[in-house]
């Protein structure tokens, strides 16, 4: 039998058996719901920036201020409703009870008083102040005999033209880089551990001797890595597609193009990172005798991944920091840091290529180590095998 056929058969078994397990189906379904939920919620919250404000008013002067707020509100993302209150005491109660957000009541002299709730934001307050000033000016101009057409021209709200300087997609990129790093971390960790526990299962159930009589150890190892990797990639692709699709549909992303590009980068780096880590995790599995040993043999790898993820949270805000740049080239960290930098637009194309090649070379080296460990340790089913012993001659 050719090596390719053997690898294919082993991979086919891994895929089929994984898809068959109930735990896998249920966890995938739950993740789908979570991903779609998060994306839709992001859209709803992101679009919910227009706030509705209720302002209570007592008396004609305050009523005009309330009308002024209603007219000026939309420019500040505020939809204002003006509600007349019978007297100042009622208005105070209404604010206290939260029936209205703020109230304008007669104050000392010609200056009305603004009653605010404890959580009234400063923008809403300055909207009230601005409306009051405009009304006071209008009244003063009327008293000075300025005709109404000129009054309107003087009072008419003027606004500066606004030009946003910098990358308008930055927030979208940051959010995606953050979520992408989290997904990569989870996916590489999950599938790395799955490879390790699959290797141990073959050792502890002792089926490995039957298998090695029929398949070369390297094909067995490669088939397992390829099979589980394809399942992992398909699962990740499903989550990302659902997340991006739901996000675009719900308007969570200001820049859908950025989201699609980021999804492609994430998928590519999952492959690279998985290849690297699955070989390392397979080695950890090969030197363990039982599932219980996995915790200690895989700990160094898991710690590396956690460190990579922690660094990536800093990368999202400062992708050009020395730590982020250096980490994005170091193979154990690159699969999580480099995609974050790439999504943020902080890495030049050649940086991505160099980092990817370094990761691939390291993965190829680890594949050889895993193959040796697998061959050396897989027939020694009693007790843990030292890495050195496993890499020795069978």
């Amino acid at each position, binding site marked *: 039998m050719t090596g390719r056929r053997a690898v294919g058969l082993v991979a086919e078994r891994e895929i089929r*058996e994984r898809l068959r397990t109930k735990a896998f189906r249920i966890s995938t379904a739950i993740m789908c719901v979570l991903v779609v939920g998060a994306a839709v919620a992001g859209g709803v919250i992101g679009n919910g920036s227009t706030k509705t404000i209720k302002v209570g008013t007592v008396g004609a002067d305050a009523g005009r201020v309330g009308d002024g707020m209603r007219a000026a509100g939309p420019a500040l993302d505020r939809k204002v409703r003006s509600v007349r209150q019978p007297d100042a005491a009622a208005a105070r109660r209404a604010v206290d009870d939260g029936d209205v957000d703020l109230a304008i009541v007669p104050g000392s002299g010609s200056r009305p008083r603004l009653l605010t709730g404890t959580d009234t934001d400063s923008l809403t307050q300055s909207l009230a102040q601005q409306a009051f000033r405009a009304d006071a000016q209008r009244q003063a101009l009327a008293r000075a005999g300025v005709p109404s057409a000129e009054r309107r021209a003087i009072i008419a709200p003027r606004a500066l033209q606004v030009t946003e300087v910098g990358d308008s997609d930055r927030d979208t990129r940051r959010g995606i880089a953050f979520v992408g790093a989290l997904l990569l971390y989870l996916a590489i960790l999950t599938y790395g551990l799955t490879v390790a526990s699959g290797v141990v299962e073959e050792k502890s159930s002792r089926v490995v001797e039957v298998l090695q009589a029929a398949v070369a150890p390297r094909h067995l190892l490669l088939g397992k890595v390829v099979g589980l990797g394809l399942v992992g990639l398909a699962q990740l692709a499903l989550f990302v597609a659902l997340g991006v699709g739901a996000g675009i549909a719900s308007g969570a992303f200001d820049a859908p193009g950025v989201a699609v590009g980021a999804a492609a980068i994430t998928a590519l780096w999952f492959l690279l990172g998985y290849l690297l880590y699955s070989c390392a995790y397979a080695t950890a599995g090969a030197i363990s005798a039982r599932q219980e040993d996995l915790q200690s043999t895989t700990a160094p790898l898991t710690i590396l991944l956690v460190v990579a993820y922690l660094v990536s949270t800093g990368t999202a805000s400062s992708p050009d920091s020395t730590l982020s740049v250096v980490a994005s080239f170091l193979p154990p960290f690159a699969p999580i840091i480099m995609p974050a930098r790439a999504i943020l637009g902080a890495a030049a194309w050649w940086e991505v290529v160099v980092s990817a090649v370094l990761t691939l070379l390291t993965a190829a080296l680890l594949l050889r180590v895993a193959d040796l460990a697998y061959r050396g340790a897989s027939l020694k089913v009693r007790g843990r095998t030292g890495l050195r012993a496993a890499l020795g001659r069978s």
Partner: protein
Amino acid sequence: MLALANVTRRFGDLVALDDVSLSVAQGSTLGFVGPNGAGKTTTMRIILGLVEADAGTVTWQDAPLNEAARRAIGYMPEERGLYPRMRVADQLTWLARLHGADRQDAAAAADRWTERLGLADRRGDEVEKLSLGNQQRVQLAASLIHDPELLVLDEPFSGLDPTGVDALAEVLAERAAAGAAIIFSSHQLELVERQCEHVAIIAGGRIQTSGRVDELRAARAGRRLRVVVDGAPDGWQNRVDGATAVDSNGEGCVLELADGTDEDTVIDAVRAAGSLRHLSQERPTLAELYREAVAG
């Protein structure tokens, strides 16, 4: 013909196999016996290529046993093993494909062997849900699933109930009749004697005795006499010149002739002790040959 020639293997300071040579022809069955730790499993793993020999050769049909030829061997390791959560038929079909069968043939073989070994109604069950005896049957099916020309079975009978033993014995005889070369290890010597034309006895990593079972027994037969004597004094058998009494079941006692002693001389000595009622040549059982070989 499978042939091992001068195979040696060390594990550190321990010489696990020392100059081991043995052969199994197509259509014949070799019983491979010896105490625990004698080197049986290591020998089989070397045949399968799971362990490398330090010296010596393994050949099949006069050519070195290469990777492709090894993949065609039907192997049952001493440490039984199957995927516990994989279904019986799925697992057998997959293993057959791993040995080179296409999908249809593999599925047909899985059907045939589960039927044959009484597992037809368990095809859809996960292996771990089966009793140990039934798991053993699946294991046997796994080693036979690709109709191998060479079967290497490490303790195939251990753990089987009497019905299982009979079924396995029948299957092995059938495979041998169909031309397969079979080597299996066992501690059940009566069973080996019944099942195998050839036997190899290994102890301390060395082959102590090997050959056709009937020839080995016949070779010792001329030197042993079973005698029943009436009216002889107690312990007379220990005082016969030129012969020693050996332990034996059955009536009377068994005398082994010393080298260079004439049969008639001993018979005369027996007659002198009492009246001789029975005299026959004694063929040692395999168990006796084994004890002798292992003790030596």
